[in-house]
């Protein structure tokens, strides 16, 4: 079957053990205000313009008759600098697996593997499961926000060697406010993950004054218990890609508060 992927990154060094290839699945049920991959939010292909180098010549806005440009307001083939492209490519799981396995020898050398991230992989759970089945020889990891039904969550869990799961906010109301949805399914899946015995890492993005408060971190530490935690410092360039997909980054950002790692039993700050 097919799925929609918005990026494939070779030599990914921050998404699990060893050197990995990371597949970014398009579409996410959350809408976190600090999301740094806004092109991964919508589940369908969309146009992206690399605005930083745009000379505003207007050629891409002129009328064209290309079939592949039809869904969009711009021509994909007119930009002299190649800045206009569609983000989101349809991949067949067999073909994608074949492509990923081309680098299996290097993954083995470096102790790496394949990580499926997003967007949110569980939104395309059937495709992701099929892909993982075709990658059974390599180390497989998933990065998930955990917002999905138990069936999808467990099916993916069953097919990976490592789960990296985000827990952003412990308080349901705050979660709804900042991420757009309730955290109830996330916390239920967190319990399933803890009980599964599957190797996992809980990731907490440190968003200034939103998630990096002592109250939130303390509450998360209570929820996760002994599970290993990686704290992700706020990325001040998180808003960089919004303009390119016609969105506006609304977060003010700022700097992380003084984070006390000793709140957690087993935490480290991710570089």
């Amino acid at each position, binding site marked *: 079957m097919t799925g929609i992927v918005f990026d494939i990154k070779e030599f990914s060094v921050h998404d699990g053990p060893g050197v990995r290839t990371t597949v970014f699945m398009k579409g996410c049920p959350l809408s976190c205000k600090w999301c740094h991959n806004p092109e991964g939010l919508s589940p369908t292909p969309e146009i992206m313009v690399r605005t930083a180098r745009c000379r505003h010549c207007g050629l891409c806005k002129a009328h064209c008759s290309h079939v592949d440009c039809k869904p969009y307001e711009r021509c994909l083939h007119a930009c002299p600098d190649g800045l206009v492209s569609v983000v989101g490519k349809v991949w067949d799981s067999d073909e994608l697996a074949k492509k990923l396995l081309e680098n299996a020898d290097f993954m083995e050398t470096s102790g790496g593997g394949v990580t499926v991230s997003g967007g949110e992989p569980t939104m395309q759970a059937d495709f992701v499961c099929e892909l993982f089945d075709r990658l059974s020889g390599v180390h497989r990891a998933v990065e998930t926000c955990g917002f999905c039904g138990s069936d999808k969550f467990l099916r993916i869990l069953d097919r990976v060697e490592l789960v990296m799961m985000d827990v952003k906010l412990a308080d349901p109301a705050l979660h709804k406010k900042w991420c757009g949805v309730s955290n109830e399914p996330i916390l239920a899946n967190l319990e399933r993950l803890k009980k599964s015995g599957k190797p996992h890492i809980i990731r907490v993005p440190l968003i200034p004054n939103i998630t990096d408060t002592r109250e939130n971190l303390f509450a998360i530490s209570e929820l996760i218990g002994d599970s290993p935690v990686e704290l992700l410092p706020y990325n001040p360039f998180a808003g960089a890609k919004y303009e390119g997909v016609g969105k506006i980054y609304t977060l003010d950002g700022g700097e992380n508060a*003084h984070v006390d790692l000793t709140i957690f039993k087993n935490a*480290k700050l991710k570089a």
Partner: protein
Amino acid sequence: MKCRLFYTFFVQSIDIGKIIGIIENVRYYNSSAPTVPLFNIISGGTLMSEKLLNYILEKKHHEFRVDYTENLAEEYSKKGFSPEERMADRFERLCLAQVPHILPEEQICYVRTTRQIPDCFTEAEWSEIKSEHFIHELGYISNLSPNYEDVIAKGLLACRESADEYSKRAIDNIIALADRYKAEAERVGRADIAAVLTRVPRYGATSFREALQFFRILHFSLWLEGNYHNTVGRFDKYMYPYFKADMDAGIYTPETALALIEDFFLSFNKDSDLYVGVQQGDNGQSMVLGGIDENGNDCFSELSKLCLIASRNLKMIDPKINLRVSKNTPIEQYMLGTELTKAGLGFPQYSNDDIVIPALIKKGYAPEDAANYVVAACWEFIIPKCGFDVANIAALSFPKMVDNVLHKDLASCESFDDVMAAVKREITAECDRVTESIKNLWFVPSPFMNVMLTERKYKNFGMHGTGIATASDSLAAIKKYVYDEKYITSEEFVKAVDDNFENTPELLDKLRNEAPKMGNNDDAADSVSVALLDMFADALDGKTNCEGGVWRAGTGSAMFYLWHANDIGASPDGRRKGEPFGTNFSASLFAKIAGPVSVVKSFTKQHFERAINGGPLTLEFHNSVFRGEDAISKVASIVKYFIDRGGHQLQLNAVNLETMKDAQAHPENYQRLVVRIWGWSAYFVELDREYQDHVIARQEYTV
């Protein structure tokens, strides 16, 4: 408490051998600083005299410099001096013009105090010489690896015995200058330096420090004689006996040895601004570490490690570090090398013994000489002590060959095979033309180089091969769109290229964004590059040069990635007129590449055993790749992967686009920002804008 973002190393003593173990074991959470950080492998503080380091960084030694602008050429011409006489006389005068200065707290002395080296010949004389001879570059000897090993062991007095009249004069002048340095050392109360100079350069070195000082005098003298791109050779091999003896005798601890090596490395940077090549930094002070010896034993030693660490600590562009590796090299060596890469110097450059040695043997080098190979100024493989190769005498532009075929043959080619046959004819004809054009090669005789390089077994010529990715992508595009898909006729394609794609935006879009490109492990493009390099090797195989040596095909570009790109207009890969080629053996600048693993695969398919003049693949990494606990081993693993797959030569850059852009805007804040250019590293702010822009353009597509 605040958590540490970086590894900090708290070790009581520097047991270098344990560093790797420490790298793997250190974790930073909840750690409190237990002891004084003696050795911090990330921030890389120096152990040498801070006073001396700052003195050089502040360029205080430049105050001793005077102009030397005598018109020697006119004088020599009037007097009817022979070339040997001129070189001997000029060297004598320049030695006499030096004013010895001992810099604060330095252990290794010598600093040049004259700025210029006037030419030995008038313009009219050069014209006459050039009418009869092929003159390579400036005409003076360059790009060789002299016999430091034997001279340091024997001493100059012993060398003098077998020297001719001119070489004797050179030696006498070197000794006289050393005596004046000794007197100055005594005058300023530096008995330690005076003691070293009592022994060297007259007699062979008996200690590590004497050997280092001896090297400094020899290297300084080679430059002062007017030779250039004076390389360093297999430093850790010929220095090791002195180092080991002193370490065994307890004269140094690892810390004090490291401090001495840093002091010595700093000496390469005292006068280097006077040694300008195509750009500042292109001075050829290349040092080779590691690799196997003639018996197959690994030469990588504690000294090699200290050299890697000294370079990392100093963060200066000289000496330029090369590391010889092979399939048997343990990952720890790659990790130490990667620590240096992380420092952002573009060092070390790696070369693969498994490929280079057999290839050199195939070209006629004796196995024991091939095993001892080093690099010339950039990456050309040469033989120390007995090689007199001219490894950069010419360059073939692959894209120009394609351009010729495009305009002469494409219309009549019925199949892509016909196109490739035409390309082969062009390459062969061009190689014939170039090799026949180089006759009666002449170098200005160099009396002191004659002392440093008595045996001249190899007189082979090397030819660079530039723009292979541009050419391969171009041919792959012609195959796909003209012959396979018949999307465009050959006439239309030629016209589109000649019009710089002004009227064919959709073709341009296809070519730039959809056509096969090297760097993606796509055989459609990669297989063409394999064929092109084979054609180049075929064209030079069996040719004898005017010195009786052979010709070697290479994958380097030197500055031709800019120069050759301006020789042609647009190219069929979608490269517009004026856009440069990639440097050396690298992907096209605008190609969208899948990532470094695919790049390594694309650039290890070729038959380097047939094209061994040198020229590396360059991998550019955004410096954020080096963050994180396992970053060093992760980057090291791709270097090892490249070598294990049979790649021949690799350089890596750790760069930050934002930093470079800011450095263009505010150069005053980035005096020490270093980038790799083609076979050497440079201070970014000292480069001409077009070279800066090229480095920046390379990053736009970096992972």
